Each structure stands twice: as C-alpha cells, then as structure tokens.
C-alpha cells in the first residue's frame, strides 16, 4: 500500500513538473513582448525631403556603405538626419553611455560630458554611466533636460591592461543588473575622447561596431589581430572583415549583453592559460565580431584619431581622441 502511494505521488510530481514546463514554454510565446517598431507611426509631421536617387551619375562617396552581410556602414551622406529624427523621436528612447574613468582618466570626464551634451543624441533621453574608483573626482557637468548621470564605484586595478580587460565584465554585469530597466540602447565609449559633430539615431542598431581609424584602408593580413593560436582571440590569416575599434561599440541591451559576456568569458579563458591578447579587450572584441557580425557598422567618422590628417573620404569627424598634451587649453 505504501509503495503504491509513493509511486502515485512520484507520478503526480512528474506530471506537475511536465505541465509547468509546457506552460512556461507556451507562455514564452504568448507574452505580448513590447515591440520596438522601426517605422514612423504618425505620418502627419513628415517633412518634405528630396527623393532618393537610385541610378547614380557619379560616385557618391568613396567609402563602402554596405557590408557583405547587408549591414549599413554609416557615414556622412548615407542618411538623412531629419528623416531619421522623424522616425526615431516618437519612439521615446533612452540611450545609455558607459565610460570608464579609472585612475588619472577622471580628468577626461569633463570634456567628454560637455561635448556629449552638445553633440550626442540631442533631443533624446540619455543616461551616462561613469564607472570610476574615485566618485569624488567626477565633476558636476550641467546636463540638459531628460539627461542623467550615474557614477558607479568600481574597483581599481594596478595595471591599466587589467582595467581595460575588466570593462567587458563590468558592462555585462551592469546591463543585467541595472541598465535593462533604464535604457533601450547602450553605447560603450572610451572616455579620453571628445564629440566634435552630431552623433544621432543613425548609430542605433542591434549590435553596433565602429571601424578603427588606423586600418580601414589596409588588407586584413595587416590587422593587429591576436595571432597566437593559443589565445581565444586568435584570428587566422584569411579571416576578418574590418578591424573594429574597442573605443566604440554598442547596441540593444540583449544583444550587447551576450556580446560583452562572450568577450568576458574568452578573456577569462585566456587568463587561465596565462595569456593576454595583443590589444587586450579590443582583440577579443574583434574576434567576436567575426563570428557575431554587427548589424550596423560606423565609419571612422565615429572613431577618429586626431593625430591623423583627415582624408577626403571622411567628410565629418564626429568623435575623436582628445589631444592628451594639454591641447584642450587651446579651445
């Protein structure tokens, strides 16, 4: 009798478990996931703009505008800023930005934020996340309406390489912990940079990478990938699309979380093997972007090195290195 009862309860447990699982799976499909529409819902305010010309008489821009996997490469002239504004403004988006101001890098925060207030996502809700070991060193910069700043205390490290590698971990944890309730898109930027021209919704996408300014005209064999096969960031000779810069990447939270977490895991694996990639997290970022291709690529306009002369193929430099030799005193 006892055994029979036990067998019955065991069966009931299994049934309950199975039905709960079935319920869970079906609920996942029913959930009215709030859908972020791509298009303009309200047509009345659409302003007049010139018709796109399909057949070109002359070469429009020297830069490639579409990757082989049909991701747009964003540069001046490829998009209509007003049109995009009309499309994205009604969506009431909040854009997040993470910067790491560790050690002496806290002194770059002021210029970064001031220039961001002038040029970054004007007219949108923005949330800056400043990761620092020294919250007191972060200056109070006046922010426009709908724009907020949060200082996130972070553990410092003795070596700057270590700091750089820990960024992926910090970002993925931040997304899982806090950002997912506060922002729709997130950009991860280097702090020792300055915005020089408008950076708008043309940069928004599921997974966004920026082409490194030093390597956009260079064959892939010369990209500074990690070339040691023992590293998880190893890229073989015939691989690679572009060399992306570690100073600018971003995207939608879910995709970005997977991306940063994947990079972090790869970094940990390397650490366990006692190896550090040639360009730290930038190497891992590049490795990951080969197998998880970005849905949108930013031209070097969005990640420029001011020490280089501006080539004719780049019409508008939007985000570039801050001259660290005290050049800001000149402005």
């Amino acid at each position, binding site marked *: 009798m006892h055994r029979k009862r*036990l067998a019955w309860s*065991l069966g009931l*447990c299994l049934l309950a*478990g199975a039905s709960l699982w079935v319920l869970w799976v079906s609920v996942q499909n029913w959930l009215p996931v709030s859908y972020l529409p*791509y298009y303009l819902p309200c047509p009345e305010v659409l302003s007049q703009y010139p018709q796109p010309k399909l057949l070109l008489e002359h070469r429009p821009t020297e830069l490639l505008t579409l990757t082989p*996997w049909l991701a747009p490469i964003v540069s001046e002239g490829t998009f*209509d800023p007003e049109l995009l504004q009309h499309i994205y403004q009604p969506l009431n988006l909040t854009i997040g930005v993470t910067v790491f101001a560790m050690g002496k890098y806290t002194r770059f925060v002021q210029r970064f934020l001031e220039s961001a207030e002038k040029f970054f996502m004007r007219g949108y809700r923005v949330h800056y996340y400043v990761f620092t070991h020294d919250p007191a060193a972060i200056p109070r910069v006046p922010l426009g309406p709908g724009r907020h700043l949060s200082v996130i205390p972070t553990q410092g490290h003795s070596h700057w390489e270590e700091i750089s590698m820990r960024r992926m971990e910090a970002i993925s944890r931040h997304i899982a912990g806090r950002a*997912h309730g506060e922002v729709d898109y997130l950009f991860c930027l280097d702090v020792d940079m300055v915005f020089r021209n408008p950076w708008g919704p043309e940069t928004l996408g*599921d997974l966004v990478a920026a082409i490194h300014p030093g390597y956009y005209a260079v064959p892939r064999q010369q990209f500074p990938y990690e070339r040691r096969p023992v590293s998880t960031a190893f890229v073989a000779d015939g691989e690679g699309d572009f060399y992306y810069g570690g100073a600018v990447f971003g995207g939608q939270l879910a995709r970005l979380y997977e991306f940063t977490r994947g990079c972090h895991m790869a970094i940990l694996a390397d650490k366990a093997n006692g190896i550090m990639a040639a360009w730290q997290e930038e190497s891992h970022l590049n490795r990951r972007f080969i197998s998880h291709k970005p*849905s949108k690529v930013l031209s070097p306009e969005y990640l420029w090195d001011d020490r280089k002369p501006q080539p004719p193929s780049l019409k508008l430099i939007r985000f570039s290195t801050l001259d660290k030799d005290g050049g800001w005193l000149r402005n």
Partner: protein
Amino acid sequence: MAKTQKTDDQVWGELAVTAVPRKPNCRLLRPSILLLMALVLVLLGYGILSPGGGRMLGSLGAGTAVREPDRLQVVTLSRKAYPQPKALTPPRTDVLVLTPWLAPIVWEGTFNSDILNVQFQLQNTTVGLTVFAIKKYVVFLKLFLETAEKHFMAGHRVIYYVFTDRPDAVPRVALGPGRRLQVLRARPFARWQDVSMQRMQMLSEAAEQGFLREVDYLVCADVDMQFHDHVGVEILSPLFGTLHPGFYGRPREAFTYERRPQSQAHIPWDEGDFYYSGAFFGGSVPEVQRLTKACHQAMLADRANGIEAVWQDESHLNKYLLYHKPTKVLSPEYMWDQQLLGWPSVLRKLRFVAVSKNHPEIRKSESGGQPAGSREGSPEGAGRAGRAVGN
C-alpha cells in the same frame, strides 16, 4: 473457536508483515521524490532567472522590453573563407545601395550569400511564400512552384501557402526536403481588381488565425511569375518592398500613386521615395500582419466612400511603405518583365520575372466574369509588371 480468534494486535501485526516488506531501499523513496521536486523547481528557477528568461519576465513588468526587430539572435558563424570587404572600393557605384533611412537596397554584388546563409541557417529560419491562384490563374502554379524549388531559399525551410478556389487544380510538384505546401481556400471574385484586393484581407486573416505562425518570414508574391535566378535570405528583414520595374529610375511625380485626396491611399505630389510593386513584398509575420491589416482597412474605408484606388492594393501598399519605411528594399532584379523591358546592364541578374500572359487558356472568357486577361486591355495599361511608362 478460541483458537482461531486472534487478538487485534496479532491481526495487525500479521498484515503489516505480509503487506509491505520493509526493505531498506523503500525508505529512500520519499526523500527521492522530494529531490525530484527540488530538481524540477531548480530547473524552472534557472529558466526564469537566467538572462534569457529574465528578459521575458522583465518585459512583463517594465513593458518597455525590446525584442530584436530583425530576430537575428546570437549566432556563431563557422569559420569559412571569403574575400575581405574593401572599405574604399564599393562593389556597386552605379546604383544606390542604401536608402536615406539606412535600409539596404539589395543588388547583385552587394551581398555575400555564404555569410548570410550561415546567419539564417543557424536560427533554423523558415520562410513562408504566399501566392494566390484564383480561377484560371491556377495554370501558373506549376511553373511558379517548379522554379521556386530551384531558386527560392535553397537550403532553408520553406512552406508554400497556396490560396485558391480550386484546390484540386493545384499541381503536384515534387518538393525538396524541408519544404512543404499548404492549400488554403479563397473566394473567386468576379472582378480581377477584387481578386487582387482580397489578398490583403486573406493574408491578414490567415496571419491572425495563426496559419502563418509556423514561419519566421512571409514573402507575398504574384502567381503569374517565375523564378529565374537566386532569391535567397538576402531579402529577409522585418519589412521589405520591391522596386517596381517600370519606375525605378523615374522622378516621384511620375509614380502612379493614388493622387485623389478622397482615397486613403492618397500621396501628395511632393512625397514618395520609391514606387513599390504589389507583386513582391514581405517581412516578419507580425509586420506583414500589420501591413495587410492596414491596407485591408484602408480599402474598406475607400469602398465605403465609393472610391477605388487607381492600382488597388498596390496603391495602398505604397502608402503604407511611405509612412512605415521598409527595413530592406529589393532592386528590380526581384521583379522584372524581360519581354517588355529587355535586360538593361544595371541588372546583373533577373531573379523573379513575369510569365507571358498570352496563354490561350487565359484569353478564353469565363462565364459570368471578366476575362482574366482583361488587364492587358484595360485603360490603365498592361497589368502590373507590364506598366512600363518608358524608361
């Protein structure tokens, strides 16, 4: 009597002994059940608390959770050799490959099928192809399906949805692995304009009823066409339209939009990006549902006001795509009429082309209805793909 009578204790004792032998492993049953329950709960909890599940729960609460518009989940691509994209050497400099709202315009040379195939295959993408074969138009099905088997989404899962009033006339075409065909019933309207317009209604109803939920993307095509070259996953995106072959180089004032303000499909003279063809459009299932529902409701409103748009559902499609920008635009390679327009050099491939409608069976007039071939002689011109206004 006294001998056989046992005390209660004795009886219970005997029963206890004979009923369940108290073996040591029986004692483990109860804790093992508890362990099993704990395991089930842990698995469920992991499903909820892990990032993927947490996202779902987050969307319950916040209401602002975002689902990836293009449904390209995390995908790890296998390492396959392909040439490096050249940042300073665009493959096509004769045509626009990106719209002002950053949607790719798909031309031959702009995409690498190997990369795209891997991306979509890793997510087990299933594509639905809808086609309407009403009355005499069933005769086009055989060539349509046979050529689709050769060129449409090769290597991916495909479901053909054939809407027809003559299920018995649907030809038996051999389908490759992972591909199947489903026949759905449609009403045979007398006027070809109504046949064309009912497609929007039927598609939105089918989507709503869940027929089309088995696929990730829907492609809605005219039946009097054939596949002539590769049409693959490069077209897939949340919402895509195709450039009409008759208007791809023309100014917007020449587009045959509906110009009467009384119609829901009205587009003013100074507006318009492209003239999209009503014969090839699609996207993700939710987006196609939205589009077809909007067009159907707009057509109902027009009918109530006693007006019919100049190119019926195509006019309404153009209105919709003007204010709901597509995320990809297909070049006229994907909608062509070689008989009428030849083969200009700007088209490196002709992928989806019109079938000549000078078929004697089509010409034969139907009883009680307009001859299906009457579009050729109608005042508006020679049917959809044939309305070339001189390029």
